[in-house]
């Protein structure tokens, strides 16, 4: 008898089953648990209150990213409540023997940037974190998903999670991305097609030529945005690009163990005839740079297009949502996207703050100055990204153009620290959510790629980066 063919997801799922029962969810083993200051304190409290302990501190790693200031790190954190959260994580990690990449550590950074950077994230793993963008780590062929604080407590106490098996979705790309069209645009293009709840209950596997051609940074951007399509997780089968990225990283296997690991990782792919619950096809060669116009990532159009007219909506619910979004965003129907002026530009976040992202933005910025009416900042995803960028002189290019160059953290992606938009300010942002108030109450967010954000900062309005004159 021939074995049933399996998807990559099914292989990872089956390899991590601790226990299966008829009615109860499957108990899955978790290989890596990442924690940060905002969603962990209540979980540690629960552990203490119940007299439990952390089962595998050796598989648990912490950093501070969500609320930390991106300004001078030699100063104490001015926000007292934020300081308490950071101090609480410090105390919890110490009490339970968990390695912490603290605020002044050279490894500090956004949790989804440093996991891969340190080689903690590896193919075939199950990875969780109390943050929805944990889907990022799926770029390495891992099953990685965001969890709530009760589940953080569950993993701390048991290193396991009871889970109902998600369905599978394949996003099959055809052709290759044109010049100036990036992984971010691919992600937005997919959301434009399937909607922000299009993948709810599913784990997406991204496949096809355009995905294979992406660097690890691009793959992380793509998997990062899976949650914005509602997916439980996103993943990409590992290949030579993956192995080359991981080789020599601090926590990656070395020597003979490395060769053995690669042999094992090479088996991590969907069988040729594997059946997915749903397949979505995308012609990557026809994608353009995207700009969101509304208050949900699905409200997105190509840069050459215009703000949609709510009266063209398919149903009453979509029409009301579009009307409300246009009112919040202060935009009028049928306005050209390239006529939208911006006040701020933010290059950062777990979606787009890796070295490749900063290089792409710097290439656009080089030799230009930002528009007089725009203020702009670059927040590297990690201290390591920051140092690497400085070695290449990217910081000088940004400085000379008028950008601020900050310390690593989540920053204005969610505005938990001092980096927020003022009411009514309009921002070209490389982050992942354009929700009302996400970057600051009354702030208006347009999601774009790093190149598009850089170009908008210089022009003062959105512009088609495919026509950019590089200097």
């Amino acid at each position, binding site marked *: 008898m021939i074995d049933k063919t399996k998807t990559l997801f099914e292989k990872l799922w089956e390899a991590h089953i601790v226990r299966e029962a008829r009615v109860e969810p499957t108990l899955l083993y978790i290989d890596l648990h990442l924690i940060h200051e905002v*969603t962990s304190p209540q979980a540690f409290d629960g552990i203490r209150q119940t007299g439990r302990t952390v089962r595998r501190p050796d598989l648990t790693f912490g950093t501070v990213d969500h609320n930390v200031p991106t300004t001078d790190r030699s100063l104490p954190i001015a926000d007292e409540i934020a300081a*308490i959260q950071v101090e609480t994580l410090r105390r919890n990690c110490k009490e339970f023997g968990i390695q912490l990449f603290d605020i002044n550590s050279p490894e500090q950074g956004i949790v989804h940037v440093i996991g891969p950077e340190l080689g903690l994230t590896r193919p075939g793993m199950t990875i969780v974190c109390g943050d929805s963008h944990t889907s990022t780590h799926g770029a390495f062929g891992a099953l990685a998903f*965001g969890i709530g604080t009760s589940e953080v407590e569950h993993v701390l106490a048991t290193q396991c999670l009871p889970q109902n098996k998600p369905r599978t979705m394949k996003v099959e790309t055809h052709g290759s991305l044109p010049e100036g069209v990036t992984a971010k645009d691919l992600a937005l293009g997919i959301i434009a097609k399937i909607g922000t709840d299009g993948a709810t209950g599913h784990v997406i596997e991204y496949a096809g030529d355009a995905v294979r051609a992406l660097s690890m940074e691009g793959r992380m951007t793509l998997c990062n945005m899976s949650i914005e399509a509602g997916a439980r997780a996103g993943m990409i089968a590992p290949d030579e690009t993956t192995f080359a990225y991981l080789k020599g990283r601090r926590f990656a296997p070395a020597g003979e163990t490395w060769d053995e690991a690669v042999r094992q990782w090479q088996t991590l792919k969907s069988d040729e005839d594997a059946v997915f619950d749903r397949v979505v096809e995308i012609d990557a060669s026809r994608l353009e740079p995207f700009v969101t116009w509304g208050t949900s990532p699905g409200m997105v159009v190509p840069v050459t297009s215009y703000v949609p007219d709510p009266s063209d909506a398919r149903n009453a619910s979509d029409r009301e*949502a579009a009307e409300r979004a246009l009112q919040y965003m202060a935009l009028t129907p049928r306005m050209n996207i390239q006529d939208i002026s911006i006040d701020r530009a933010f290059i950062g976040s777990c979606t787009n703050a890796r070295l490749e992202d900063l290089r792409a933005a710097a290439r656009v910025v080089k030799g230009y100055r930002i528009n007089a009416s725009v203020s702009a900042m670059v927040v590297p995803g990690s201290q390591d990204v920051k140092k690497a960028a400085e070695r290449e002189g990217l910081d000088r290019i940004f400085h000379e153009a008028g950008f601020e160059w900050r310390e690593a953290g989540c920053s204005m992606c969610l*505005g938990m620290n001092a980096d927020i938009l003022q009411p009514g300010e309009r921002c070209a942002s490389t982050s992942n959510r354009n929700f009302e108030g996400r970057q600051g109450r009354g702030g208006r967010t347009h999601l774009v790629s790093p190149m598009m954000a850089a170009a908008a900062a210089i022009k003062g309005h959105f512009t088609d980066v495919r026509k950019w004159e590089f200097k």
Partner: protein
Amino acid sequence: MKRFHKHTGLVAPLDRANVDTDQIIPKQFLKRIERTGFGEFLFYDWRYLPDGRLNPSFVLNQPRYQGTSILVADKNFGCGSSREHAPWALGEFGFRVIIAPSFADIFANNCFKNGMLPIALPAAQVAQIMDRAQREEGYQLTVDLERQTVEDANGLSILFVVSEFQRYCLLEGLDDIGLTLRHEDAIRAYERRSAQS
């Protein structure tokens, strides 16, 4: 965990799709290290005007919805961030049940962990409940988890689906970490197997 058997309460209609967790509890209120203290900040940007006064036009501020414990909303409720502060805020405000055509996965999970019941119903039925809650002052629903029904006093009776295990945990108020820890032998066996491979 708080048990859930049967609940009767006033229904508040929030006629919006894609209500995200940033709206439910904005980030500036995520800095607390306790599980409590979030209720007053629920839907902050909608409930309060920029000057801090209550926004009288927001549904939860209207006198007729005071004391509400059942929220009905449009599709994809709870999308976005994984913050469990969202169900904490909803629960502290007084909600025990949320009804919508669909929920974001992490949010729905977080609700169950906090004794709150997210009920997904077909869009037409949600629209019907939304309509009644908007028209009839004092409109109430009774949600019975044992029988898996949503009913009103005017003959509306809808069966809903919930996973057997989540239903059992809510009915019994079970601590699911305790349940997992009962399988210590299986966890150890898994760890031994993976250490060898």
